């Protein structure tokens, strides 16, 4: 997926482990939310994070692109140590796509504007080039014909696919997804998961916080169960989801899978 114009990941020693997290702690005031997380993600891996509300899943994800600043520990992305004060975080973030629960599209811009503004302002691509790459990204999510619409005129599912395209247009090395289908009407969940599945098949490195057990089971290479700021259990989906070893994992899955 190296489109022309892609930023070469300026990795000091290209790494096969684009996300490395060592002994990560994060507190908000007195509230300790992450309590010593260790996590390595290999290139091309799809890793799903599951766990109860408040267990720190979003916080962990947001530490990966430094939207939250870790209290201690190390977060190394694409070979850059984000916890190093000298690290150019803005530059590293260009290589990390992030998709949010509430889409966070830019309402004052058209769909095309959404998928080109960062290319233009951050990567300094020319207008025609940004447009071309933007349209390609929209084609990947099946929304090229909506390029001139404003986000407010799209369905939730379409907005979320535009949000994915917005990240893809930056040619990221990896993508972070934080419960991207939780705000959608049930009939719109499938189209977004479909796009994510095709990204996974194309070899994108993905870290996905989700409550969609079907997706985790079918698409993930690895599933991580988090509870109370710690990784309780991790492994292939057949193990963690189908045959969980820990009692807390079992309890959580019983609760979640009741709905099926």
């Amino acid at each position, binding site marked *: 997926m190296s489109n022309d114009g892609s930023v070469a990941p300026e990795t000091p020693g290209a790494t096969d482990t684009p996300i490395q997290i060592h002994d990560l702690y994060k507190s908000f005031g007195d509230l300790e939310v992450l309590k010593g997380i260790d996590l390595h993600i290999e290139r091309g891996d799809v890793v799903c994070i599951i766990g109860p509300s408040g267990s720190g899943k979003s916080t962990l994800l947001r530490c990966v692109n430094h*939207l939250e600043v870790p209290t201690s520990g190390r977060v190394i992305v694409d070979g850059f140590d984000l916890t190093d004060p000298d690290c150019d975080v*803005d530059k590293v973030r260009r290589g990390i796509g992030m998709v949010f629960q509430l889409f*966070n599209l830019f309402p*004052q811009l058209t769909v095309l504007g959404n998928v080109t503004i960062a290319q233009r302002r951050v990567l300094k691509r020319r207008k025609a080039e940004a447009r071309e790459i933007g349209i390609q990204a929209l084609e990947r999510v099946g929304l090229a014909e909506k390029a001139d619409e404003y986000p407010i005129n799209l369905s939730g599912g379409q907005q979320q696919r535009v949000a994915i395209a917005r*990240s893809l247009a930056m040619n990221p090395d990896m993508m972070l997804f934080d419960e991207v289908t939780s705000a959608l009407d049930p009939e719109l969940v499938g189209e977004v998961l479909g796009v994510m599945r095709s990204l996974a098949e194309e070899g994108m490195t993905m870290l996905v916080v989700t409550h969609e057990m079907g997706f985790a089971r079918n698409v993930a290479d690895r599933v991580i169960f988090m509870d109370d700021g710690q990784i309780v259990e991790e492994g292939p989906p057949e193990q963690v989801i189908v045959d969980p070893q820990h009692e807390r994992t079992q309890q959580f899955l019983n609760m979640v899978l009741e709905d099926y």
Partner: protein
Amino acid sequence: MVRDQLPSDKNTLIKEGTKTERGTAVSKRQRAKLVRIGVYVATVLVLVFVGLTVDWQSIQESFFNPEIFREQFPDIVTQAARNTLIFTFFGFTGGLAVGLVIAVMRISSIRAYRWFAAPYIELLRGLPALLTILIIGFGVPIATGTQLPGRYTTGSLALALVASAYIAENIRAGIEAVPRGQMEAARSLGMTYTRAMISIVIPQAFRIIIPPLTNELVLLLKDTSLISVLGVTEATREITRFARDGVIDSANATPFIAAGVVYLAITIPLTRAAALIERRARQAR
């Protein structure tokens, strides 16, 4: 009256609660009606008293003298209104520029910026505009021994300072009304804080605050009348000063009325436009 019935007829009261309530309502309405009639009567009496005691002839001559009214034109438009609009323009654009900087400093994560911006806003909002204008117009030249160049500079600068504090607070409120997710989405695309502010957050903030900003514009336009205390020359007279000079010249108050007409001719369309924009914005949401 209703309450008197309560003990005597408790059962009916409970069963026919609605009826009793309606009874209360009617008596309330009746009382309101009586009050309203009283107000009408009092108003008419006052009007009759005023009408009989005031010398209408003299009022008409001193406020609504058609000849003097006509004499105000065209200068009250070509000179006075023009100057008012020039002061308003420079005051507002200056206030917008400074206000934007102050607003961004006010919410900055850098403490020194906040420590500058917060007292700046408090100070200028806490002082009467007239005092600020006097300080800039007289205090600064006395202290520095120099006069600012340009006919409009001092007045515009003073107005810009006054406006900047109010505009800064408007802009800050607008920025804070933009959902946090917008900044986070922009940052996660690799934008710097400054870039995200300029390209994503501030444009949305301005759309939110167009109505209050228009309001500030009208307030500023009216505050240009305070500039007259700076001892302006004939060439820079704005509407209020122009009218005052006219009143002194003609020993007649009609120029004030002419000034009022000219002000309203500018401010009413502005506030109407603001209301329209606000309604549009609300529908769009």
